[in-house]
């Protein structure tokens, strides 16, 4: 009897986490989950998140951990279905924007001047504006040279949008793609 009660209590916590994560509009970190469920230890919450993740592993909806915390997302295999319902067009990013972003991702922190030198053209202000608006990049301090140019870095929001946990993971994934493309050419 006691055992059944305990099991039910465990399941209850998993369901509460499920409800919270489902209703959240942003990824929730372990810290913010604990603020919402103060009666539980972090380790307990962490264990239940993994349980929940396992339960959803074979569904179209998956629980994932990204840079800013845990969130539900629809498996990319079913994006076609989502697009049909939401009637959204897959957006394309321009070459200048992608090149600028690539430089910031891999060489951060960089100044606007660094980007211009590496790309060999004057900075595309529209591309940079879009990157700021999307909250993919931000200013973090200045370089200690004359003019004190602002240093640009990527944000955790970029990692969230690419479904990554850390910057290293993002860089690694890009390198993997690069090497697979090269081997395809060879």
């Amino acid at each position, binding site marked *: 009897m006691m055992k059944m009660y305990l099991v039910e209590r465990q399941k209850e916590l998993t369901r509460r986490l499920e409800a919270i994560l*489902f209703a959240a509009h942003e990824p929730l970190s372990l810290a913010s989950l604990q603020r919402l469920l103060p009666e539980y230890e972090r380790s307990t919450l962490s264990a239940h998140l993994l349980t929940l993740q396992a339960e959803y592993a074979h569904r179209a909806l998956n629980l994932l951990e990204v840079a800013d915390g845990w969130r539900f*997302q629809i498996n990319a295999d079913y994006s076609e279905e989502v697009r049909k319902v939401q009637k959204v067009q897959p957006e394309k990013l321009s070459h200048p924007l*992608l090149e600028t972003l690539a430089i910031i991702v891999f060489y951060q922190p960089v100044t606007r001047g660094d980007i211009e030198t590496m790309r*060999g053209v004057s900075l595309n202000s529209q591309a940079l504006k879009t990157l700021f608006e999307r909250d993919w990049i931000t200013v973090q301090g200045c370089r200690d040279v004359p003019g004190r140019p602002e240093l640009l870095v990527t944000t955790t929001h970029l990692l969230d*949008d*690419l*479904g990554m946990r850390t910057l290293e993971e993002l860089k690694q*994934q890009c390198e993997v793609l*690069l090497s697979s493309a090269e081997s395809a050419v060879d």
Partner: protein
Amino acid sequence: MEALPAVIYRNDDAIYLNGELLDALPENLYIPPHALRVLLSTFCGPFDLLLYLIRRQRFNVLDLPMQTITTQYFHYMRLMQKEDLPLAGEYLSMAAWLCEIKSRLLLPASADVEAEEDPRQDLSQRLQAYMKIQNLAHALDKLPRLQRDFFIPHIDGDESLRALPPPCPQWSDLQAIMRELILRRKLSREHEIKREPYRLDERMDALLRQSLAGGWHNWRPVFRTWDDKQRLIVDFLALLILSKRGAIDLEQQGALLRYRRRLTAEAVA
């Protein structure tokens, strides 16, 4: 020595293949003019254009045939000009760089060859770095991205609670607000400075001229309008000044004010 790859370029209307004049473009190499125009406007800058030329000819970035590259680069710049594409300064600066490298290669090698580095080295390093960035950008674009490749489920429950239907305005509220708006508008009306229609010196002249006719003149101020009021003030001021200067006498008779030319002592006598 490695065989040079086929180099085709068009100089005005003549077509050269490995330096030999051709009658027409080989068919499999023909690029329709329209496609060329599209192609030209898609370059992200001089590095992009150079890389395109190098890749198309399958040149090695580390061993650039400067003569060919420079010729082709200039050819494309000319095409861009012809197509009225804006030729930004960075394209011209790259052209200058290419020329510089080419001319340095043409100089006879000095005795200490080993000390002198290959002038192409810097360019090929920059090109390699840019190529890496292009590849990374491409890889970055291929990564699954939120809202393009995958999506996040949304429950709008709390959102809809937050967005209560806007309250319907009451007719009386609208009236009150309108009144307030009109009032506020009046308060914020710009202060206008108008030119005075009556000038003091002109009125003094006029009154003095009247008094010259002799005898007492009644001053009958009229004030029906704002204009009258202004005239009244100016006239009154004019009378006071004339009186002070000793040109006229003022006298109050009942509610009226009358004036006359001041008589000189002899005249009074």
